[in-house]
């Protein structure tokens, strides 16, 4: 069975030393979010993930969810774990105090999410989807809906779902067919079929609150005619008690490659009673608030898998005795050397480690800015933080989920045949991680979001939210000896990437296919640059702390990992820039018949 220890030291390093998360406690409503509170909460959360969620991850994968007569049964132990999780109040960590949550920073929820996903990605889907539904209702629902549904979603007694996809449309939601007919009493009658609905049906909660995209009778065609509805599995009486069964029924569950303990449902809505959330025909907008946060949450799933894959690959590499070092025996007293002596095994481990730790720094940076965007008293500061988050959302989602899959694959490779068989549990990481590159907008869609929406937005203003602080850092530290080996090269790469951004903007303006053909390379290049900036921040902090003897090995490890990142990972950006420069012709020049 795989093992997992939450990376609490690294989290504390980022929170306290690199980003100074203590400033969050100065924001109104976050007074309790002090560093020692962060630490207590993360420690207890880690315990829960390591001791309650991890032990049912592999068994949940083997057993999977079962479906019989409209009823979904989750694997053994999930119900008890869900109770421990929700009764501990973890569902409400960053939910509003008004509805019974703890009102703590979203940043803290980010870090908890990472740990939950390392321990048990399938389990994380259930509270994760509830969280998304909670956000949409809280931001767009009328007070009456909020008071009726949110408190029990915060306690976890009820869960939530997001019902978007239909059999004939996923990415292009303008095509949906689900109908909503006004019943005249303020409610609507919802009919249609939704597929791929995570947690659409389960045996963990007494009620399930579905958020359903549907079209009103007079709706304009396309995405401008979509409305959002709240459809409970059981109608809720005025006193809050459970009422009659609503016409929202699970037709079947999917048999999937991974996340087998998460029920992926076909949901049939047959004259189900629902209530409008937000404004008629503006459902996509409401859905997008939910989706942006959900995209970040999916990114964290990738980060979680990458971390647990690294930990298991590493412990195998240290324990597995096989052959000898290339220059001769490194541990002559043992029957053979551990495989960590081999350069290629180290290459794999350091690739995993350097991107994972950089990505965690990115998660903290984005999480903090999300909190600043939500809570800061100054409107300009809020806007600027919001622009940075918007820019970094597709990057976070695609970078971290691609890395989750890559890291899981590397763990399998390090473990050889033992990685490929079920017993050690790392092949499960590969299968579980694969979906994260697909749902909440495929990574190709993330790339289009970056080049099509975020890049041109207000003439590149969003780009500057990243380019400016990065340029400033380079300027300020150009004579700092700690950076002598890495900064000059990074500065050159940074310059070139800005030029490439300009070139892309010009070409795309004339021909949108130019943007499309370069999108994935651009997103990947941008991601490598962002990780580079994260590593620069970490190097600066770690260098200043080397004198601290008690944690010396931690900081030394940071600096060595940074060296690897700049020398062996970042250069991929050069190939990406060459690809971008090559333009759209190599991909669009061949007609479809020639394939």
């Amino acid at each position, binding site marked *: 069975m795989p093992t997992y*220890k939450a990376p609490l030291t690294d989290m504390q390093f980022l929170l306290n030393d690199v980003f100074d998360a203590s400033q969050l406690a100065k924001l109104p409503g976050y007074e*309790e979010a*002090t560093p*020692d*509170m962060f*630490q*207590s*909460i993360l420690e*207890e959360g880690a*315990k*829960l993930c390591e001791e*309650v969620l991890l032990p049912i991850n592999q068994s949940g994968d083997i057993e999977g969810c079962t479906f019989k007569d409209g009823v979904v049964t989750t694997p053994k132990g999930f119900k008890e774990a869900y109770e*421990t999780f929700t*009764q*501990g*109040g*973890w569902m*409400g*960590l960053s939910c509003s105090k008004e509805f019974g949550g*703890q009102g703590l920073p979203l940043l803290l929820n980010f870090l908890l999410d990472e740990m939950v996903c390392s321990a048990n990605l399938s389990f994380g889907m259930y509270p994760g989807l509830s969280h998304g539904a909670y956000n949409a209702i809280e931001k767009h629902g009328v007070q009456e809906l909020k008071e009726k549904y949110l408190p029990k979603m915060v306690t976890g007694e009820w869960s939530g779902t997001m019902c978007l996809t239909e059999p004939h449309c996923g990415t292009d939601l303008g095509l949906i067919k689900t109908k909503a007919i006004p019943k005249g009493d303020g409610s609507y009658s919802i009919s249609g079929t939704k597929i791929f609905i995570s947690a659409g049906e389960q045996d963990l909660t007494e009620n399930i609150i579905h958020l359903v995209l549907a079209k009103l009778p007079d709706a304009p065609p396309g995405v401008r005619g979509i409305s959002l509805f709240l459809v409970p599995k059981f109608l809720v009486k005025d006193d809050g008690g459970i009422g009659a069964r609503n016409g929202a029924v699970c037709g079947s569950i999917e048999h999937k490659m991974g996340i087998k303990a998460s029920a992926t449902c076909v949901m049939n809505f047959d004259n189900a009673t629902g209530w409008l959330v937000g404004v008629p025909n503006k459902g996509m907008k409401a859905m997008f608030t939910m989706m942006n946060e959900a995209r970040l949450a999916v990114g964290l799933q990738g980060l979680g898998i990458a971390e647990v894959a690294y930990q298991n690959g590493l412990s195998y590499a240290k324990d597995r005795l096989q052959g000898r070092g290339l220059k001769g025996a490194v541990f002559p007293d043992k029957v053979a050397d551990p495989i960590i002596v081999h350069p290629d095994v180290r290459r794999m481990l350091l690739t995993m480690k350097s991107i994972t730790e950089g990505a965690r720094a990115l998660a903290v940076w984005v999480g903090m800015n999300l909190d600043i965007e939500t809570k800061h008293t100054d409107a300009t500061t809020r806007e600027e933080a919001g622009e940075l988050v918007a820019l970094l959302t597709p990057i976070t989602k695609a970078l971290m989920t691609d890395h989750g899959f890559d890291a899981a694959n590397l763990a399998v490779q390090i473990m050889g045949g033992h990685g490929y068989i079920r017993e050690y549990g790392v092949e499960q990481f590969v299968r579980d991680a694969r979906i994260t590159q697909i749902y909440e907008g495929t990574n190709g869609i993330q790339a289009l979001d970056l080049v099509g929406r975020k890049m041109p937005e207000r003439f590149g203003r969003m780009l500057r939210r990243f380019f400016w602080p990065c340029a400033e850092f380079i300027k300020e530290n150009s004579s700092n000896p700690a950076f002598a080996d890495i900064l000059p090269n990074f500065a050159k790469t940074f310059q070139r990437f800005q030029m490439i951004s300009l070139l892309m903007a010009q070409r795309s303006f004339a021909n949108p296919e130019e943007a499309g053909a370069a999108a994935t390379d651009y997103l990947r290049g941008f991601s490598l640059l962002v990780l580079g900036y994260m590593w620069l921040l970490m190097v600066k902090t770690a260098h200043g702390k080397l004198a601290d*003897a*008690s*944690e010396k*090995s*931690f900081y030394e490890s940071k600096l060595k990992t940074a060296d690897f990142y700049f020398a062996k990972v970042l250069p991929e950006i050069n190939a990406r820039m060459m690809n971008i420069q090559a333009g759209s012709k190599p991909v669009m020049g061949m007609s479809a018949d020639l394939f």
Partner: protein
Amino acid sequence: MKILVPVKRVIDFNVKIRVKADNSGVETANVKMGMNPFDEIAVEEAVRLKEKGKATEVIAVTIGPAQCQDLLRTAMAIGADRSIHALFDGETQPLGVAKTLKAIVDQEKPDMVILGKQAIDGDNNQVGQMLGALLGWGQATFASKVELGAGSVNVTREVDGGLETLQLKLPAIITTDLRLNEPRYATLPNIMKAKKKPIEPFDAAAKGVDLSPRIKTLRVDEPGSRKAGIKVPDVATLVDKLKNEAKVI
């Protein structure tokens, strides 16, 4: 009904212990620390008694450096009402700890002290017994079940031959064994409430308690590695070797 629960900060039970290079002790720098697991059981038991309405107040106590405050917060997140911290930076040993606890008992006058039977670092298994002697109270060690009556407590103990049930007059000392209960996970709201619960300092020296070590550690070594075994041709040889070489039968 007031219950006092002493807790100790030890190396986390998951950590692989390493001996210091100079053999003066075990490595504690850069090592994860946590609450002694037996003490966690003691806190849980006290909090359960309070939740059943049998106790009115649970006070967590620790003796050690400033970082021990984390431990007290953990105890309060499980459900202790308040804490007392006797700040001490040196090595703590059973007698000094028992004497400090006696001074705290004199001040707080609890009806019961529930302690872990031993701490997983020193494995001494002495503090509860010493405290009982210093106070002149009855003691029931290695508890696997605690039932509170009026003015007395029935404690089931795990002894070599099986289970033994004792009745003690209150006030009394109880030390916990592993099977007494399974400690809960602290809930998020309780972790947050714990931050607002008070931690009072306790100046042991001012009460005339001498915490300075009386036992000197001469040397600490890793356990010797296991030697290779041998194969015996038959049962008779095995019995012979066990009898005459190993002298175990």
